[in-house]
């Protein structure tokens, strides 16, 4: 069981790498080094701020685009191209396939993020010529970004398990946008009354909550992140990804592969 999941995961990773997904790193490197050089000439004061803001935002956006576009194709593309037939006619359970795909995609993103993180730290070093203690906060932000990816991956797989690639992309992307304003949604729920309040509160807890995972701007201003928050965010991401992934398994387990 574990071996099969690992094989599916590593095959997913290999496919993604061969599909030139990691080429996005080049675009990232160009963007970041360009910004580092340019901003250094404009202002000394905020160059570090800009590098952190821009670097982390790019890490997060590039990763989300990859997660959505690969994630939605993972299941539906295999159905469309009928590669799934030759996999599921082997002693592979359907849930193993879903979990394996998730691990492979998450692994791809972690590797991608790792290289980008090196880029961010290199750019930081370039602009300030040294590392200070507060730079460790960037690691926290990166960790939160990876948690964000886990949630997006699981959602992309969930949609991919029952919907067409285009619709899945639309769903996943809108949930990303809504999730970024999840706290506003809950605030709005708090101001509503009666049935609306009930409805909006439900929706606010159902959509993924990305606002607590986005600490980029506060970290750029060297605001510390509470250990409690790190711990709770980890739990939250794990619970949410489990939920979406179980949903994907539940749907996929009953799906006729026409």
């Amino acid at each position: 069981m574990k071996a099969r999941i690992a094989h599916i995961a590593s095959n997913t990773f290999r496919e993604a790498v061969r599909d030139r997904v990691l080429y996005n790193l080049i675009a990232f490197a160009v963007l970041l080094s360009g910004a580092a050089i340019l901003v250094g000439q404009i202002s000394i004061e905020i160059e570090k701020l800009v590098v952190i803001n821009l670097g982390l935002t790019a890490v997060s956006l590039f990763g989300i685009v990859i997660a959505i576009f690969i994630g939605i194709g993972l299941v539906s593309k295999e159905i469309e191209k009928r590669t799934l037939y030759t996999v599921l006619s082997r002693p592979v359970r359907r849930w193993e396939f879903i979990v394996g795909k998730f691990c492979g995609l998450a692994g791809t993103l972690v590797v991608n993020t790792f290289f980008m993180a090196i880029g961010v730290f290199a750019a930081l070093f370039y602009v300030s010529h040294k590392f200070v203690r507060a730079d460790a906060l960037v690691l926290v932000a990166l960790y939160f970004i990876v948690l964000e990816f886990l949630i997006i991956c699981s959602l992309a797989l969930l949609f991919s398990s029952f919907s067409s690639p285009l619709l899945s992309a639309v769903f996943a992307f809108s949930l990303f946008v809504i999730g970024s304003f999840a706290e506003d949604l809950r605030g709005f729920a708090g101001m509503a009354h009666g049935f609306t309040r009930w409805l909006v509160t439900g929706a606010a807890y159902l959509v993924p909550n990305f606002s607590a995972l986005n600490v980029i701007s506060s970290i750029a201003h060297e605001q510390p992140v509470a250990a409690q928050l790190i711990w709770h965010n980890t739990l939250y991401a794990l619970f949410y990804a489990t939920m979406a992934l179980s949903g994907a398994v539940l749907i996929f387990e009953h799906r006729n592969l026409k």
Partner: protein
Amino acid sequence: MPAIEILGLEKTYFVGFWRKRPKCALRPLHLTVEDGEIFGFLGPNGAGKTTTLKLLMGLVFPTSGSARLLGRDWTDPEVKAQIGFLPEQPYFYDHLTANELLNYYAQLSGVPGKERSRRVESTLQRVGLTDVKGVQLRKFSKGMLQRVGIAQAILHDPKLVFFDEPMSGLDPMGRREVRDLMEQLKHEGKTVFFSTHILSDAEALCDRVAIIHQGELRGIGAVADLTSSVHGKVEVIWQGTHVPASMKALGAECHVTGDTVRAVIDENQQDAAIDALRRERLPLIALTPVRTSLEAYFVEKLQRAETTAGSGK
């Protein structure tokens, strides 16, 4: 112990926007395939052959009924380690090489690590892909992909193999090789279940055939029994998508399927037919005498189907 026992498998899809209109893909099907047989599953396109195979592979779920494979419940995942499956017009991960793909499938089938590379190597050799094993699959032709498909189906030394249209996309040499391979598998004591719409393939290979049309089993029997009498007919198969007028003039019944056309003509018109194809520069794939009773049997079953369908509407 029969290799395959199909116990009333039935599949109804619900179509339309609200999924309310039932569409019967397979009526309750009862079928037994004995151990060590080559069994042909015949029928025109859309007859329900692929649906039956997908049901047996657990890719779609039946509306009712069940099946047993190799004496065990067909949903038992462990039974699948003993089964090989070639889907119709197979397609694989573009960015893998044939070697990597087969390794991956061997891992999924639970072939132990030590044996794996040896097994992959010998299977590649068996389907004639050793020279291109390091090439990514997106560069493969349709015929080469078909060979990869066959390779992945027999890779883990299964006791029972299912082939869905194994000859499609292959050139005459390839068709010959696949026929030989199926016979070898039979000699190795394996059971082969394959679907086709090309009668000559079935006739040359099968111990028994079943004919299915519009989701319904129309007939079943041993080829030897069905081909007892021989009439003066030949089957001509060529590559192309249209029927030249000169062929029609010969009074041939022509069936276009995919990129091949199949016609049945009188034996004495065989030279004229070849001439006609040569004039049209259409590549001839096969010319085989038809033991008309299988043909007649097939046509009869289909015609019965058509009349029932006609009266039904």
